């Protein structure tokens, strides 16, 4: 089962990488007023329970994949119906609101 962890800089945190990319896009003529650069992790897990995959994804994000001082994250369990909607529910950053995606 695959869990996808999306990590991005929190609002208000300066992102020099994103700004450099924005400048490149502007140079190419795109009307980009802001770029925020994050990271995407595709994690294959040897589990079959979506709730467990979700829990592991969040724990891994809290412990290592994201630094909570400057980054937020979303966790999406691939192949779970409604996962795309649930990504918004899962929201950013805190481990407390973890249950929604898996419950779908």
């Amino acid at each position, binding site marked *: 089962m695959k869990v996808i962890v999306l990590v991005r800089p929190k609002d208000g*945190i*300066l992102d*020099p*990488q994103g*700004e450099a990319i924005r400048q490149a896009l502007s140079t190419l003529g795109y009307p980009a007023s802001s770029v925020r650069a994050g990271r995407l992790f595709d994690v294959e897990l040897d589990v079959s329970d979506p709730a467990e995959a979700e829990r592991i994804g969040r724990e891994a994000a809290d412990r*290592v*994949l994201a*630094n909570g*001082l400057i980054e937020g994250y979303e966790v999406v369990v691939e192949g779970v119906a409604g996962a795309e909607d649930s990504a918004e529910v899962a929201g950013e950053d805190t481990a407390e609101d973890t249950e929604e995606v898996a419950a779908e």
Partner: protein
Amino acid sequence: MKPRIGVITFPGTCDDRDALRAIGLIGGEPVALWHADDSLDGCTGVIVPGGFSYGDYLRAGAIARFAPMMREVEAFAAAGGPVLGICNGFQVLCEAGLLPGVLRPNHHGRFVCRDVDLVVQRAGSPWLAGLEPGDVLRVPVKHHDGAWYAPPDEQERVEAAGQVALRYADNPNGALADIACVTNAAGNVCGLMPHPEHAVDPALGSIGGRPLLKGLLTLARVRSKKASAVTA
């Protein structure tokens, strides 16, 4: 007896040799430690040195913090042992939660490599014995991810607790409030982006790095006396 100071080498560390040499120069016994080992080998002080451990993958310092040797360092620090993190070592200690905050990419997006002046913030720190607020130490920096940051409430707490040891006179990286060097609340763990181990020999320029390293030696000496008192 010379205090034994361990210097940890991770894959991608590059300033371990300078740190070992500097410890020898100022009167300590340098001890090379390997990240995958799980013993501090009797050291009473530890340096987590500079470099690019694990290629700075994920975030600088984020992978090295899980090395077996870091578990030893965490236990050593929790027991009051003195630990100095330099550059990548500072990043590792922040990622490990042994020091407050995090090191972010330089605000200008460029690698910075030059001497900087560091201003002492308070008297009485064992890491900077004999120095007064306003005293200046010239030490080189060389980093890409050196901007210290903490959320506002965390920064306030760190400032109020006197954990800011040094500030940049001329901020080279966008660090919050010009903060260059912080300690933990207990004061036995210290980290900074500038490289004191590169500034110890007058033949090579400034010797502004000596006070911090001597501070580590002093703390390590106190600790070895305590240890021998316990075993005696």
